[in-house]
């Protein structure tokens, strides 16, 4: 698989899985040994079960969108960054809805294997996110 095919797969993953919370094509997009290293999380998230542990944006911001600003691909790696925007109308990590609009920046790296996501590293600008919601970040 070339980098352009991998980019198309990653776009679908962001559109279907991350933006819409639709897991129906998971096996088509993601390798069964998938591991996501979410920066700040105590442990890597493994496979579909791991993905389900991360609260979908659909829940806390049903109007939310995740945009991709830039992709950089080399070999079997794609790096990307972008923004997720939305209105905080649902509970997030125990925080009651504030009704505030937010823009949260993110960046991530993915390693592909046979055209599917095999490993990922991601971070979000959590501090900026909490500041926009006007709340104190939870202590570690």
């Amino acid at each position: 698989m070339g980098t352009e095919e991998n980019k198309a797969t990653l776009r679908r993953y962001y559109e279907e899985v991350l933006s819409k919370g639709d897991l129906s094509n998971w096996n088509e997009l993601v390798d069964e040994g998938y591991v996501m290293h979410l920066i700040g999380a105590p442990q890597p998230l493994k496979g579909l079960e791991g993905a389900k542990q991360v609260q979908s944006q659909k829940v806390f911001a049903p109007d939310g969108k995740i945009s991709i600003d830039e992709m950089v691909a080399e070999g079997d790696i794609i790096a990307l960054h972008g923004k997720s925007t939305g209105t905080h109308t649902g509970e997030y990590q125990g925080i009651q809805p504030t009704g505030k609009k937010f823009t949260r920046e993110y960046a991530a790296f993915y390693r592909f294997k046979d055209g599917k996501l095999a490993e990922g590293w991601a971070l979000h600008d959590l501090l900026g996110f909490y500041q926009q919601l006007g709340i104190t970040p939870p202590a570690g």
Partner: protein
Amino acid sequence: MSVEQNKATLRHMYDEVWNKGNISVVAELASPDYHFGEYKGPEGWGQIVTMIRSAFPDLKYTIDQVVGEGDTLAYRISGEGTHKGKYGDLEPTGKKVQWTQMLFSEFKDGKIVTTISLAGGLDLYQQAEEHNKEVTRRTLEDVINKEDVSLIPELFDANYVHRGPGGQEIKGHDGWREKVKMMRTAFPDIRYTIDELVSEGDKVVCRHSSIGTHKGEYAGIAPTGKQVTMSGMFINRFEGGKVVETWGVSNPLLLYQQLGITPPAG
């Protein structure tokens, strides 16, 4: 310039500029058009490096992954350093911290023209707050429970002041040594338990209870041999990773009742 050449430039930048603080190399690596937020040109970049390195003088970055396409490099780095200077509005904690960044740098004629950087910025605050909690925990569990007064200079600032409800003060390292000696003499088996610790910014709130047997003179009261339990709360304020001020309250009346004596008047 090729992706491989840009990668070599990037590695050189991390080795020389970030990890060694060799600002003079910046001009070779940054485009005259360099911009990052309000920072412009190689000079602006030098300012960023100086700022970060004064917050973390022993800063060390490691490049964990770097990929390139066209004129852009995307890279993941791990940073670590001891937080000895002010970082943003966060006062120095003296704590060794680690963080992760993901960056996208655009190159022009082999030099960096702009960078987008995302960091796990929250980690720094969390790590500082965790550090302050840990120090607070040690002031009770190590200094008092284990009577390890040698830790006092490590945990308390030289200008330390403890403020009690009646205006009484305990000052400096010697004040703490005296306090520990007095408590351990009156209650040789004293044992503090931390019931709750809450950390926010440069303050830690601690709710605690303690138990001990009254075997030595305490505030002019001859030993009664009775076991007493106490509880209290205090707030520690931190500067440079050490406790600099404490506001504490406890209920001495309870102590007197348990010792079976009449509290002193006044």
